[in-house]
C-alpha cells in the first residue's frame, strides 16, 4: 500500500509518501502561500527521490480543512486532478485531526488551533484519540470558555495546545487558564506524514471519499454570505462583496 499525501491548508505546504507502517518521504516548505506554484513540483520531486511513481500509489490523501480557503482548494483540486487522471482513490483528512495525530499517544486533552485571522482560531478538542467537539472558529475568549467546560467534562486538569494559532494566542491562554496550559514546541506544525498515516488507516478500513463530491471543510461561510444573511430584507447589497477572500 502507498499513500501520496498532500497538505496546503496553512502557509506550510507538505508532500509525503507513506504506508501504514512507514514514511518513505516527507517534505515541508514553510515558505508562505506559494502553493499553486510549488505543490506539483514537490510531488514530482517526491517520486524522483523515492523511485516510486503515481502508478504505484493506491490513494491520494489531502487535508480538507479548516484552513486557508484558497490553500484548501489548491490542495483538493490537485488531489482530484491526480486521482481522476490516474484512477486513484481519494481520502480527505481534516487538518486539525492531522495536527492532533502528532500526539495521538497522549492521554491528555488536545487542542490543535490554526490561525483563522479576524481574531479567531480554527479549533476542535481531542481526548483519548477521538475528536470530541465540532470544528469551529473561536475567539480566544470563547476558546478559553470551551476549554474550561471540556476540562470539567473530561476531568482533565491540563490542555495541550498545538498548531500555528499557538504562536499568537499563547499569552492570552496562559493568562486565563494559567498552569492548565501545556504547549509543546516542535508539535505545532501540521505534518503531512500524519495526514498520510491517518489516510492509511482509512484506506485499510475501506473508508474512501468520492472524488466528485469531496469538498473542503471551510467552517466559515464567505463574508458575502454572512453579510447577506445579516442584511436580508434590508436591501442595499452591492459591490463591496466583490473581492477575493483568504
Amino acid at each position, binding site marked *: 500500500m502507498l499513500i501520496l499525501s498532500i497538505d496546503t491548508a496553512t502557509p506550510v505546504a507538505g508532500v509525503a509518501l507513506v504506508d501504514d507502517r512507514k514514511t518513505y518521504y516527507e517534505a515541508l516548505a514553510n515558505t508562505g502561500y506559494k502553493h*499553486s506554484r510549488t*505543490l*506539483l513540483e514537490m510531488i514530482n520531486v517526491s517520486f524522483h527521490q523515492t523511485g516510486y511513481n503515481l502508478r504505484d500509489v493506491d490513494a491520494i490523501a489531502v487535508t480538507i480543512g479548516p484552513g486557508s480557503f484558497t490553500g484548501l*482548494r489548491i490542495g483538493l483540486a490537485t488531489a*482530484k486532478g491526480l486521482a481522476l487522471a490516474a484512477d486513484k482513490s481519494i481520502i480527505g483528512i481534516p487538518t486539525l485531526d492531522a495536527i492532533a495525530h502528532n500526539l495521538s499517544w497522549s492521554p491528555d486533552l488536545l487542542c490543535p488551533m490554526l490561525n483563522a485571522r479576524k481574531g479567531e482560531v480554527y479549533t476542535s478538542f481531542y481526548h483519548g484519540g477521538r475528536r470530541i467537539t465540532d470544528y469551529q472558529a473561536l475567539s480566544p475568549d470563547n476558546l478559553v470558555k470551551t476549554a474550561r467546560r471540556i476540562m470539567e467534562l473530561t476531568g482533565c486538569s491540563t490542555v495541550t495546545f498545538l498548531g500555528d494559532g499557538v504562536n499568537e494566542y499563547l499569552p492570552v491562554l496562559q493568562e486565563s487558564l494559567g498552569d492548565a496550559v501545556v504547549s509543546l514546541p516542535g508539535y505545532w506544525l501540521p505534518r503531512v506524514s500524519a495526514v498520510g498515516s491517518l489516510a492509511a488507516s482509512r484506506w485499510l478500513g475501506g473508508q474512501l471519499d468520492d472524488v*466528485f463530491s469531496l469538498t473542503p471543510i471551510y467552517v466559515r461561510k464567505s463574508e458575502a454570505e454572512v453579510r447577506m444573511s445579516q442584511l436580508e430584507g434590508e436591501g442595499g*447589497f452591492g459591490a463591496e462583496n466583490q473581492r477575493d*477572500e483568504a
Partner: protein
Amino acid sequence: MKEIRIMGIETSCDETAVAVVENGHRVLANLVSSQINIHRRFGGVVPEVASRKHIEVIASLVDEALKEAGMTGREIDAIAVTYTPGLIGALLVGVSFAKAYAYGLGKPLIGVDHLEAHIYANFLTEEPPVFPAVCLVVSGGHTSLLYMRDHRCFELLGRTRDDAAGEAFDKVARFLGLGYPGGPAVQKAAQSGKAGIYHLPRVYLERSDYEFSFSGLKTATINLWNKLKKNGEEAAVNDLAAEFQEALVDVLVEKTINAARHKEVKQILLAGGVAANARLRERITREADKMGTAVQIPPPALCTDNAAMVACAGYYQYLEGDFAGLDLNAFPQLGLAVQKTCG
C-alpha cells in the same frame, strides 16, 4: 493525419467549463456549469462563492465532458487551462486541477490567456477567419480593440480607460432595477423601448484614437434617471435602456469600423460576452457589409465564458509547442495576449 484533441478548462469567473475540441474546430463536448443563479442574489459575482462552486463541480464536469466526447482521458493530447486574467481564487481551482490532471495523464499542459481564448472562439468553425483582422473584445472585464496579423499575433490598438462595456451594462441594469446579469437584462428592456427619446453622450466618439470610456456614460444614465425622477416625470425605463445600449453600441461600432478601414483588414472579429448582444451584432454586420469587409462573430453561447474557446486557443499553442511547466501559476490581471506584438 492524426487528430489532435485538446481538453479546455475554464474557471476564471463564475462559470465552470470543460470542453473537448478536435483539431481546433470540431467541438466534441462543451459543458458549462453556470453560477448565475447563485450570484444573482448578491447582484454580482462574489469571488469566494464562485471559487467554492468551482471546486464542487470541476471533477464531475471533466468526467461528463469525456463521456460526451466518447473518450478517455488518455486519448486527450493536451490539457489547456485559463490562467489569466480573472478572479485569482477562481483561476487557481482550474489551474491546480488542470496541472495535476495533465501530470497524472502524462500529457502536455497549456496555459491560456482568457482574452486570447475569447478571440479564438471565432476559430471554432470549419471556415476560420482570414488575416489580417481587427478584433473587438468586449466583456464584463475588458473592452479592447486589437489588430491581429496572424495566429497569436496581436497588436493593441486601444482599450477602455475605465469601465468595461459589460461592466457598464451590469451597473446600469442594477441601477435601473432590470436584473442580473446586466447585458441580457438591458437588451431585453431595450427591445421594448426606443433609442433617441432620451439623449446620452457617445463618449470619446470625437477622438480619432481607439480608446474607450464607459464610466461617463454610466454616470450620465444614472444622472438622467435621477433628474427625471426629481422633476416628477414618468421615466420610461425601456427607452432609457434602449438609448444607453445605442450610445454604447454606437461607439463600439464606429471605432471598430474606423480601425478596420485604417488597418485595411479583410476581416472584423467580435469576441467576449458583450458580443452576444443582438444590437451590437446587427449594427456591426450592417456597417461592415457597407464597406465589404467580412465579419465573424461566434454564436452567443461561445461569446460568453466557455471552455471550447480555451481548447481552441490551446490548439494553436499546441501547434507552436507553447507548453506550460509544473509551476504554472494563476495571475489575476496579466492579459499577456493583448500586449503582445510579433514578427
